[in-house]
């Protein structure tokens, strides 16, 4: 695999990961507050539809964005009504919202546009434009870094950059602000929050509003990318985001890695119908090695700043080494041309991998994913 191919795969990874990341963060805020949200899929769909419809009608994607966020928030509030106010089953509410969104988007779409549930195609100026970062043309001449800058870092829409920014912001809000502290507390032990004199109901509604807004962004992104709404266009992304959330153990930075990984799987699946096993392992160990090297570098800086201890380096160091070993082994096997490894991975394997990985994580075979302790249960004031 040459450098440019890898760049192109990474570029489309980022494109595919953007809606996942936004939706995953939406789920993160919701579940951190103790509300399980399997209605993410429905919110995505509702937002994609209304943003597409409004963007087409007004010619402005920004108005579309507002409408998308509003639609998603409306669904969020319905979820809140059922699961917070009426203390209903959060899972059932989520299932219901997914049905509602899948139906309403087509019924209303047909009524408005008579295109079988599609919205008309969005003209270019009713979509998000790609932001070409400064000097991308000029820099593209520089070897290695130039194309990477041009291809990968530059040339995405505003929402991709917003999604990436949302990661540190979410982290900061969750771990550095009063609101974040209370939000996390209400998902772990609402009675602790209640006895401290804070309203559990209010906190949970706010969390759902944030989740609605983030899903709204993600839905709008989908509509803009596909130049309009198509029936069922979320295509299970809400569920993948949910899987990513578990994979990320409900943490923002991990959410970024999980959605990038799932985006990468989708990108590879899109590009190759059947990828050679060795190519697959090589690509992933190469990228994994690079990513871990960056993590290791960051950790070393933190050790230097003495925010963490040297002992915390062990894990990333070992991970980096083992991935590196896999990379070397792959190259060796390729050189030896061992027949055992000369098979191809089907595209369906790539599609299923995010879910398989999530089940493995859930089963606790690789690290344990412990959800916020109060998630899924309505808060009933006890005596």
């Amino acid at each position, binding site marked *: 695999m040459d450098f440019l191919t890898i760049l192109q795969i990474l570029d489309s990874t980022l494109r595919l990961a953007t809606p996942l990341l936004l939706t995953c963060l939406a789920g993160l805020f919701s579940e951190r507050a103790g509300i399980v949200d*399997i209605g993410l899929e429905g919110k995505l769909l509702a937002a994609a539809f209304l943003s597409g419809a409004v963007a087409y009608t007004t010619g402005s994607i920004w108005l579309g964005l507002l409408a998308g966020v509003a639609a998603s928030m409306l669904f969020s509030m319905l979820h809140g009504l059922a699961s917070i106010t009426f203390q209903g089953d959060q899972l059932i509410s989520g299932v219901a919202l997914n049905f509602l969104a*899948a*139906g309403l988007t*087509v*019924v209303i779409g047909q*009524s408005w546009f008579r295109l079988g549930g599609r919205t008309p195609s969005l003209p270019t100026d009713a979509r998000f434009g790609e932001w070409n970062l400064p000097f991308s043309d000029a820099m593209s001449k520089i070897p290695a870094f130039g194309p990477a800058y041009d291809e990968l870092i530059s040339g995405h829409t505003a929402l991709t950059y917003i999604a990436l920014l949302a990661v540190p912001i979410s982290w900061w809000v969750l771990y550095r602000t009063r609101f974040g502290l209370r939000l996390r507390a209400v998902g772990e032990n609402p009675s602790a929050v209640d006895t401290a004199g804070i309203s559990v109901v209010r906190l949970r509604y706010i969390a759902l509003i944030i989740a609605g807004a983030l899903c709204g962004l993600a839905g709008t992104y989908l509509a803009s990318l596909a130049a309009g709404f198509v029936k069922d266009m979320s295509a299970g992304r809400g569920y993948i985001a949910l899987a990513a959330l578990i994979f990320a153990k409900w943490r923002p930075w991990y959410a970024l890695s999980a959605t990038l990984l799932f985006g990468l799987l989708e990108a590879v699946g899109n590009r190759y119908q059947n990828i050679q096993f060795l190519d697959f392992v090589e690509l992933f160990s190469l990228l994994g090695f690079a990513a871990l090297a960056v993590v290791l570098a960051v950790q070393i800086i933190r050790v230097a700043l003495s925010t963490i201890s040297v002992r915390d380096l062990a894990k990333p160091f070992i991970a980096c080494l083992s991935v590196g070993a896999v990379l070397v082994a792959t190259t060796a096997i390729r050189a030896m041309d061992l027949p055992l490894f000369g098979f191809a991975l089907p595209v369906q394997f790539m599609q299923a991998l995010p879910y398989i990985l999530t089940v493995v994580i*859930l*089963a*606790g075979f690789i690290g344990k994913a412990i959800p916020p302790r109060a998630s899924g249960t309505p808060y009933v004031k006890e005596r």
Partner: protein
Amino acid sequence: MQAMPKWADAILIPFISLLLAFILSGLMIMAIGKDPVVAVQTMVQGAFGSTNGLGYTLYYTTNFIFTGLAIAVAYQARLFNIGGEGQVMLGGVGVALVCLAIDWPHWAIALPAAMIGGAVFGAAWAFIPAYLQAKRGSHIVITTMMFNFIASAFVGYLLINFLKVPGSMSTESAGFPDGAHLPNFHDMLAPFGIEFSANSPANIAFLIALLAAVGFWVLIWKTRLGFEIRSFGASETAAKYAGINPVRITIIAMLISGALCGLMAINNVMGEAERLIDNAPEGAGFIGIAVALMGRNHPIGIVLAALLFGFLVQGGAELNLWESIPRELVMVIQGLVILFTGALDNMVRRPLEKLFLALRKAKEA
């Protein structure tokens, strides 16, 4: 203390919830500029007005009885099996493998074999989430949901790489042999001199579904296993006191649930399509959740709710045809029904409980 009489809980609350869902659906139809009365007429006419329509209605009903029972049996043990969709898909694989295995001499031999194939595959697909829940505490809602997607990819892979007819463009298996053709209502009713549309897909699987409903009733209310499942669902601490093994019950309840989902494939795969196609369940696994909810996890309720949803799906198709209202309207109605009968239960229940308490006080006074 009971705030409400039993009938109010079993009948009144679902009825009011359903009514609310239908009123909102009616408003929805008006909002898109159609006449709800005409829509209802069209739906009823399309679903029950001809043997052809009735055949489709009962065909869908059959699907939903199977999945509704499946979700309900798990729910009796308070396990939320959201993976019906995947289990139905795998059941389809089981049925297809059996049907394609040999040139079946007669459907009466092929059917039991196919039933075993479907049930075993469906149960196997439910086993892993059940095991993970029972032994490792992995939340069964999430794992079964993940298994839906894994099933979809897996079945797609099997179809394209193994089952597809070489050279064919469509991702579907070869047609089943004639000996695996199930008698449809036309064949079944002809000896009695009843004329039933030959083109409608309702088939003998409908009777199997009704039998399954009876079997469900026997299992849950007449056997020790059913008693243990219900006890475990009602109170885990009491079940522990009585010496009921939670791991065993969790796994068995999910195996039965998966098997019932797998059995659905004798209707849609063997009875209707007569070959394995991609995405054969068409959401029946999810609709099973609504059916079980509406039917209050009781076989009679489930059969009635399945009929209601069968009517909605078939009537929705007719709406699409005659009134150019998209069939997705049915999904809206389904969503509303799930929302009101399931998640917003307390919205209906709380005022009713107050009402009944007030009535009782007035009576006592």
